[in-house]
């Protein structure tokens, strides 16, 4: 008799198992036990009945297609092949597909509902709306207690302190949950101050997801007037609400991250635009000034005021813009915008006044047209330093 090493024995048994066509395509029904959802994505478990048990593994590539979360005690139907794990000398089922068998009717109903709604186009990619760039007020449909609502508040505020949240407290599980969620969505849908809705549930793996597969809830999400983010399912147990929402996230925190931008980044964008604005306008003013100088140097104009006048108007209007509290504030706030807006100072009419131009005001308003002035009218003239009052003697239009 030949003496085999343990490795040789195990390999021989494995090859025998794998050479049996019956074992390479098996369907086994049993109860799940020792379920271990490994961080690698592989799912390890045993299948058992009253008298026996067998080890099984479902690799990530297969497990990620699971329509439900495997849990101990569930009655399931597995398909796969039988082989031996040589290291342990243990034979096991390498599972390709797994479906709940015990809740057969319920599961079938869910699959059918999903197919029906899919056919209707409720989950279609072209229905998906873009989320607002900067939401002002977000409706949050979730349980008012637990980690989900807290996580959403914390993350949203950290990213954009100006965002408002309107929490619509609902039951997320139990018989009353669908009514509760549909009611809350209906109430939010009637408001005109919500520009985004997050619908989520708290953590915990044992929660009943039934409400998020309820047809009325799914429809309410799909047809909601503003974009929706779902934070209901996890990696392995997506619900129909996840498919119906415009975006879905793995956790409530991730939903808040999707929904709320980091304002710092947007400030940079606005700052860049403000910078471009200033550059273009400054360029234009320089061009105009050169054109004006070219004209004045020719000394051929008869009525110099008509040439200078538009530029006085420009100065006046610039000063008006500059002196507005708005611009003042823009100039004194911190951040990226400040750096760019600060260049506005380069456009200050004061700089221009220092070159000898003047601003004429009548009744506190800049005078733009000579014809608006009356002989004898008092006007105030602002120079680079100081002002003086005078009376109009003659007007030439």
């Amino acid at each position, binding site marked *: 008799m030949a003496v085999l090493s343990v490795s040789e024995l195990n390999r021989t048994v494995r090859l025998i198992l794998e050479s049996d066509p019956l074992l390479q395509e098996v369907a086994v029904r049993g109860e799940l036990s020792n379920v271990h959802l490994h961080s690698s994505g592989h799912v390890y478990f045993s299948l058992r009945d009253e008298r026996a048990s067998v080890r099984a593994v479902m690799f990530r590539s297969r497990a990620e297609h699971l329509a439900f979360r495997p849990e101990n005690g569930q009655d399931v139907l597995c398909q796969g092949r039988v082989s031996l794990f040589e290291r342990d000398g243990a034979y096991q089922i390498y599972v390709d597909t797994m479906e709940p068998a015990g809740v057969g009717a319920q599961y079938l109903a869910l699959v059918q509902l999903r197919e029906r709604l899919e056919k209707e186009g409720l989950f279609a990619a072209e229905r998906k709306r873009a989320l607002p760039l900067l939401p002002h007020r977000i409706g949050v449909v979730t349980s008012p207690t637990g980690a989900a609502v*807290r996580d959403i508040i914390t993350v949203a505020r950290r990213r954009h302190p100006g965002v408002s949240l309107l929490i619509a407290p609902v039951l997320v599980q139990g018989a009353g949950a669908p009514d509760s969620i549909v009611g809350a969505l209906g109430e939010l849908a009637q408001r005109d101050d919500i520009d985004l809705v997050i619908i989520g549930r708290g953590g915990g793996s044992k929660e009943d997801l039934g409400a998020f597969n309820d047809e009325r809830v799914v429809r309410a999400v799909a047809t909601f007037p503003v974009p929706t983010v779902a934070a209901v399912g996890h990696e392995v147990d997506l619900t129909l609400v996840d498919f119906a929402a415009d975006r879905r996230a793995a956790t409530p925190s991730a939903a808040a991250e999707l929904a709320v931008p980091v304002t710092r980044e947007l400030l940079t964008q*606005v700052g860049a635009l403000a910078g471009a604005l200033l550059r273009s306008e400054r360029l234009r003013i320089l061009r105009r000034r050169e054109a004006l100088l070219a004209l004045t140097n020719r000394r051929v104009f008869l009525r110099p005021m008509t040439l200078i006048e538009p530029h006085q108007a420009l100065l006046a209007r610039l000063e008006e813009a500059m002196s507005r509290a*708005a611009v003042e504030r823009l100039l004194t706030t911190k951040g990226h915008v400040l750096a760019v807006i600060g260049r506005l100072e380069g456009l200050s009419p004061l700089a221009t006044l220092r070159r000898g131009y003047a601003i004429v005001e009548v009744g506190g308003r800049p005078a733009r047209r000579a014809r608006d002035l009356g002989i004898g009218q008092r006007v105030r003239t602002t120079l680079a330093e100081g002002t003086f009052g005078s009376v109009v003697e003659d007007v030439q239009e």
Partner: protein
Amino acid sequence: MTFEEAVKRLEEIVKELESDDLTLEKSLALFEEGVALSKTCQELLEGAEGAIEKLAGGRVEPFEETEGEA
């Protein structure tokens, strides 16, 4: 005006200002509008802290953050 609308308009204005065939009046008007829009955007981004509220029987009430810890 939403943030998107403001940014979009601001982008249009910058583009328009960069073109050459503008009257002085027009370019100044655009510039002023642009400055106002920059301010609007900035206010939307850096405005007052938002409210955390909840719906309670058709009314809106403050949401106490300790509520989430129950």
